[in-house]
């Protein structure tokens, strides 16, 4: 039975035959088919199982609004669940599987759910699986998830590439049906920059699906000619397979272009999809309309489809949905399907119209009545009709085309919170007055349902849009074609039906909507959430309207009063991969490498991400197997000889101007005005609320020139803050800022031999003696025979130490030089771990302590806050609550038993008494093993900690079951007098 339902004609290329597999069985189709049309051509109606009841389902539509025919496309890493068979372009070798079934599609074992449908109504899960609460996560949810659901993921990495791009235009035309083509042609001929985007692989919209003529051409041939002309215009970009997924602020649109989805694998070097951000001056929305079904008993059997979809399959794909077809309609459009089918030689067994004044036909029977039930478990066999006179009639058929009228596709008009308005004459919502900026709507999307009207409104909308932006254009000549008025009698569901599906994908029936009403969930937003109406991957494109019409009727209100739920992007399901683009794996965010990175890698360093930087964490030597071995060695080397550490990542901000010192007085809580040239000073920055923001040193290189350093993580926020203070608070202060973080490579050289080492690097006319260059000095110097450099005598480790900066390009050379000339001192490179141990041993606060909750007083630096000048945060730092007795104060912590560990995050409790939040005394912020002291040490915050040195306490972590006896000590574990760093 090869393509038993294939008709003559259509827009498929019969010279190209594609073999494909569905559920393991091989079929043939042609170029230009979709998976759905090819399956129908081969007589396959059953394509899936429903979400909840596992009812057999076939295809409902011929477009992206499809709720039923969802398949797993491809296999292996490219397997993609929930792919709509109606939009999958057929290609040779295509593999697809039906989904949401247990066992073969024809004998789905979970179809048992259908027998229990009385219990599985709306709200069932909420009501039934309440008790016992612990059962939800372990028992109920896994079972429900297995039974209800969609396709499965491959769990493998996506092998394809996704890209992002930006496009700019005068006019964006969304949709390439008659209105969109007319608009694009009008604008294209005017010379305007135009983008025409359509989700289909073939442009033309409904023109491809109708048996119309435009002048003396068939509708698809006319569309082909227009598209060919548009493609010949250099100012027009024609984008096939491109869905505009969202309308964003100020004329920005999101678009997904499917470059390779129609290929078995993407061509070499091509992305799978591209996410475009389109900036446009004006937009014409020409997205057409979507036909809606009518609800009746058992209206979900395979073979029951939208009448327009049956027409599309016949006219465009040359496929009869079945040999024997019945139509059920409430409007004239249903009759159009019957006429086309009859003309193509398909047997139309009858047209059932709910209207008394339905048009008659000589070619087939037109019955005044309603479909009240259907038969056929795995595919439609018969429809039961109640005629107007009450008689029941049955018609045998294999397909039923249902037409409940057309909904203008207003989706994108509502992305900026616009609300559609109701039109009685076409019984549908049309775009409201609040459209996204620069958007106008043409054709069926605006409620103009005839082809002539669509063409005319398209060209008119283009002229109007272009004139707004000053581009002259002329309306195109509209070809002679169909111009029928809409004739419809609103009809949503057959009275008395219960198991009549509204939302086919989420299995929401008329009965569920009645239940929702009965239980008080009547507002459309409540209805949606209680029943899950419209919450499936199709977002209710064929179901929302019916659901809310029934609710309006039950609630005794009108449809426009009941209103719609809010339309949100994306318009159709969009792969996460295309949002990620190239930002995945290694490229998830930019990676910043220090100037010594290459060298550090050569040394086998372990790296850690700090912000976007990769910093060396430690440098293992041969034989070292545990990180602590390396870190302990590095720490001891700094304390006994000399170590070197790349500190380039610290933020550096150059501050210049006559009032630079005054400016620093504003941003630091301590004074800077009197800092002498050639000196550095520690500075603490507060937020305006008095909480510590950041700290670092500022070096005065000249009267009007400072270099401010920040912590690595805060380099950007601090710069932003300083610009805020400069531009917004003191707009006329004579000061300029620039970030120079990446301009200078900077190394900390620390340890008793640091001076001796640097004397071999720094050119000899700089006197490094303690008298000439004491602690906290800074200077412009030269190194290695003339290279300009900056030298700071500052110390984070507590040792005699310097930081030496050279232009970044020399960073690699400098680290190699330091290591080479330092060999005689056994100079040891150290990483961030050793840096951390060294600073904890000195009690220096870092990010763990400046954690956004601590004040200068908490940090033991309350006296630093100057009261004699205005600085950010100084006023609010004096608030009573921040300075009251019981305030946390930074302390040191050591275990009473030297073998006990101390962990950061643990809390401090009194030696006796309960362990609970009410008796909490403080917490540990930073902890490490001190190789110099031979036991764990920590710093943390303790209530009135400055008054409690020597107190014995308990360190607890109830979560991990730790309870350790500790002693509160000074945080300055090493060299509390600071003699080493002044040596």
């Amino acid at each position: 039975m090869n393509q038993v339902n294939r008709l003559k004609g259509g827009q498929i290329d019969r010279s190209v035959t594609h073999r494909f597999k569905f559920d393991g069985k091989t079929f043939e189709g042609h170029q230009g088919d979709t998976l759905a049309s090819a399956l129908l051509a081969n007589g396959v109606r059953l394509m899936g199982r429903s979400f909840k009841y596992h009812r057999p389902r076939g295809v409902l539509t011929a477009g992206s609004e499809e709720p039923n025919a969802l398949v797993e496309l491809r296999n292996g890493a490219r397997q993609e669940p929930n792919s709509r068979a109606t939009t999958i372009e057929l290609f040779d070798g295509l593999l697809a599987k039906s989904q949401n079934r247990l066992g073969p599609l024809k004998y789905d074992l979970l179809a048992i759910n259908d027998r229990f449908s009385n219990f599985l109504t709306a709200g069932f899960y909420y009501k039934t699986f309440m008790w016992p609460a612990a059962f939800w996560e372990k028992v109920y949810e896994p079972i429900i998830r297995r039974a209800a659901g969609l396709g499965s993921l491959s769990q493998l990495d996506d092998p394809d590439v996704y890209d992002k791009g930006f496009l700019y235009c005068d006019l964006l035309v969304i949709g390439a049906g008659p209105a969109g083509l007319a608009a694009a042609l009008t604008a294209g001929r005017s010379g305007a920059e135009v983008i025409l985007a359509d989700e289909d692989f073939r442009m033309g919209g409904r023109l491809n699906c109708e048996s119309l003529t435009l002048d003396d051409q068939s509708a698809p041939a006319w569309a082909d000619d227009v598209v060919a002309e548009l493609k010949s215009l250099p100012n027009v970009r024609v984008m096939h397979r491109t869905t505009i997924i969202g309308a964003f602020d100020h004329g920005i649109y999101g678009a997904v272009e499917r470059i390779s989805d129609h290929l078995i694998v993407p061509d070499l070097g091509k992305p799978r999809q591209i996410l475009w951000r389109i900036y446009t001056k004006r937009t014409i929305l020409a997205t057409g309309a979507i036909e809606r079904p009518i609800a009746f008993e058992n209206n979900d059997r395979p073979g029951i489809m939208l009448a327009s979809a049956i027409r599309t399959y016949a006219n465009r794909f040359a496929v009869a949905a079945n040999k024997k077809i019945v139509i059920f309609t409430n409007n004239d459009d249903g009759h159009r399907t019957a006429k086309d089918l009859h003309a193509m030689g398909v047997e139309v067994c009858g047209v059932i119209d709910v209207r008394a004044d339905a048009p008659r036909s000589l070619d087939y029977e037109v019955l005044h009545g309603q479909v009240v039930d259907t038969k056929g478990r795995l595919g439609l066999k018969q429809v039961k009709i109640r005629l107007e006179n009450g008689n029941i009639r049955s018609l045998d058929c294999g397909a039923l085309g249902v037409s409940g009228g057309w909904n203008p596709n207003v989706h994108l008009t509502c992305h900026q919170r616009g609300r559609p308005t109701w039109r009685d004459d076409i019984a549908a919502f049309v775009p409201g007055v609040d459209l996204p900026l620069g958007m106008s709507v043409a054709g069926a999307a605006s409620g103009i349902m005839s082809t002539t009207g669509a063409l005319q409104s398209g060209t008119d909308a283009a002229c109007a849009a272009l004139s707004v932006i000053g581009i002259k254009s002329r309306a195109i000549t509209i070809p002679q074609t169909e111009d029928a008025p809409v004739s419809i009698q609103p009809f949503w569901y057959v009275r008395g039906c219960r198991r009549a599906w509204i939302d086919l994908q989420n299995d929401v029936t008329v009965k569920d909507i009645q239940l929702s009403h009965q239980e008080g969930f009547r507002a459309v937003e409540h209805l949606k959430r209680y029943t899950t109406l419209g919450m499936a991957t199709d977002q209710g494109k064929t179901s929302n309207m019916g659901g809310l019409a029934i609710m309006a009727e039950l609630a005794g209100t009108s449809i426009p009063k009941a209103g719609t739920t809010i339309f949100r992007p994306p318009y159709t399901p969009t792969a996460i991969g295309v949002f990620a683009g190239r930002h995945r794996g290694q490229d998830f965010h930019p990676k910043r490498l220090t100037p010594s990175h290459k060298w550090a890698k050569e040394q086998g360093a372990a790296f850690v991400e700090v912000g976007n930087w990769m910093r060396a964490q430690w440098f293992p030597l041969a034989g070292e197997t545990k990180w602590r071995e390396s870190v302990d060695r590095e720490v001891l080397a700094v304390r006994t000889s000399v170590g070197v550490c790349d500190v380039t990542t610290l933020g550096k901000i150059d501050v210049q101007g006559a009032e630079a010192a005054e400016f620093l007085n504003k941003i630091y809580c301590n004074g800077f005005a009197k800092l002498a040239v050639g000196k550095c000073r520690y500075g603490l920055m507060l937020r305006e609320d008095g909480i510590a923001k950041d700290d670092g040193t500022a070096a005065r290189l000249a009267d009007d020139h400072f270099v401010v350093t920040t912590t690595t993580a805060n380099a950007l926020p601090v710069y932003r803050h300083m610009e805020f203070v400069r531009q917004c608070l003191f707009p006329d202060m004579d000061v300029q800022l620039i970030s120079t973080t990446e301009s200078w490579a900077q190394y900390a050289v620390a340890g008793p031999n640091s001076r001796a080492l640097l004397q071999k690097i720094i050119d000899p006319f700089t006197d490094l003696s303690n008298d000439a260059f004491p602690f906290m000095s800074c200077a412009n110097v030269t190194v290695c025979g003339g290279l300009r450099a900056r030298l700071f005598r500052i110390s984070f480790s507590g040792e005699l130490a310097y930081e030496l900066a050279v232009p970044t390009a020399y960073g690699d050379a400098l680290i190699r030089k330091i290591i080479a000339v330092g060999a005689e001192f056994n100079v040891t490179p150290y990483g961030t771990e050793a840096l951390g141990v060294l600073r904890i041993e000195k009690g220096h606060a870092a990010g763990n302590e400046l954690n956004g909750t601590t004040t200068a007083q908490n940090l033991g630096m309350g006296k630093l806050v100057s009261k004699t000048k205005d600085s950010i945060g100084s006023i609010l730092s004096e608030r009573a609550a921040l300075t009251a007795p019981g305030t946390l104060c930074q302390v040191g912590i050591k275990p009473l038993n030297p073998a006990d560990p101390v962990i950061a995050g643990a809390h401090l409790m009194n030696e006796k008494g309960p362990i609970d939040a009410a008796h909490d005394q403080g917490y540990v912020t930073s902890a490490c093993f001190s190789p110099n002291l031979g036991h764990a040490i920590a710093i943390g915050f303790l209530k009135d900690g400055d008054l409690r040195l020597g107190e014995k306490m308990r360190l607890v972590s109830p979560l991990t079951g730790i309870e350790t006896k500790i002693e509160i000590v000074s945080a300055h574990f090493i060299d509390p007098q600071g003699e080493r760093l002044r040596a």
Partner: protein
Amino acid sequence: MIINHPLLGPRDSAEFIYLGDAKLIDRPNWQAPTAAKDFYEYAYLRDNPAGWHDELWFHEAGDRSWLVVTRNTLTHEISNVALARDVARLRGRSK
């Protein structure tokens, strides 16, 4: 959104960092007798209007200007964009 930068022309809002109410420009006088109360209100009390709002945006991925953007928080319509420095001067923050 597109912010029409007074110096650079229309730029995507993705280039900017948002701070908040432009009243942050009006930092109180630290020596006023009511300084404690003034700074408390300055730091914590902000209007959050559903409608027109003067906001501070920083062109971080651009020229590092602070801007005052007058934006309707309901519609995202932007009616005016000015350099924060000019606004600050107008509000008397020149020396």
